[in-house]
């Protein structure tokens, strides 16, 4: 296996359907005021979150474990498609947002160079939103991800339009 290819086992995909419109889920994901309410595992709180939400902008969030240990993460936004998709990177940081080795936090991490996180927001059309988070994607597939879903939606619309045209005859 080539050394710079991402091992499939390193990929992580998490999907969740939220019982809320897409704009609302987007807001909860991109507004630090709300991010601070959900950032971090169970039992963790987030005492600080700052987001310069634009392509090339950076974010910096802190989470505090139940026993008071603070973990800082920072990252950058690489692609933003309003209400649809975000490509970003994330790393462990110090409180100033400078990258640190995860070992400093006691986390063993085999670095994956050029890995990005992709978040896809899909409107399920019934007031529900499907959120897909793909971790550690290489940039090329990060750019292409979401396009299959996009195409399916376009095809559905085309099918609907064709159906409407057919019955209007």
């Amino acid at each position, binding site marked *: 296996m080539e050394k710079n290819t991402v091992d499939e086992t390193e990929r992580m995909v998490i999907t969740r359907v939220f019982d809320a419109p897409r704009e609302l889920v987007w807001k*909860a994901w991109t507004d630090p005021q709300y991010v601070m309410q*959900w950032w971090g595992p*169970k039992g963790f709180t987030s005492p600080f979150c700052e987001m310069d939400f634009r392509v090339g902008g950076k974010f910096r969030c802190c989470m505090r474990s139940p026993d008071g240990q603070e973990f800082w993460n920072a990252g950058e936004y690489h692609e933003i498609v309003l209400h649809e998709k975000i490509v970003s990177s994330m790393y462990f940081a110090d409180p100033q947002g400078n990258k640190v080795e995860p070992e400093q936090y006691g986390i063993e991490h085999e670095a994956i160079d050029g890995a990005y996180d992709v978040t896809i927001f899909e409107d399920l059309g019934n007031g529900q939103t499907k959120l897909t988070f793909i971790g550690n994607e290489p940039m090329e597939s990060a750019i292409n991800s979401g396009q299959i879903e996009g195409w399916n939606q376009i095809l559905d619309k085309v099918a609907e339009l064709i159906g409407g045209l057919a019955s209007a005859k």
Partner: protein
Amino acid sequence: MIERLSHGPASVHGLTEAFALSQQMISKHVACLIRARIVIKTKRGRESVCTLRPEAIKSVSDWAAYYRRFWEESFDKLDVVVNQMKKTEVRDGKKHG
């Protein structure tokens, strides 16, 4: 429990509080981890202190597991936030604040 100990050593008493389980249950679990050579128990005064073996830390707190847990559990919390936001929006008649 391993996750808790990955943050640092803890007394059996401390673990009992963290998990809301009886001291007997915790001791039983700790005994298993000691047998599995994941945890070492030492005496500090009257307290028994549990520490992860360094070799075990390497394998249990690996990035992939941490990363998945981070996002899975953040999503759980996001669900609560989104539902709260939805209620607020309905209550405020879609007014933006």
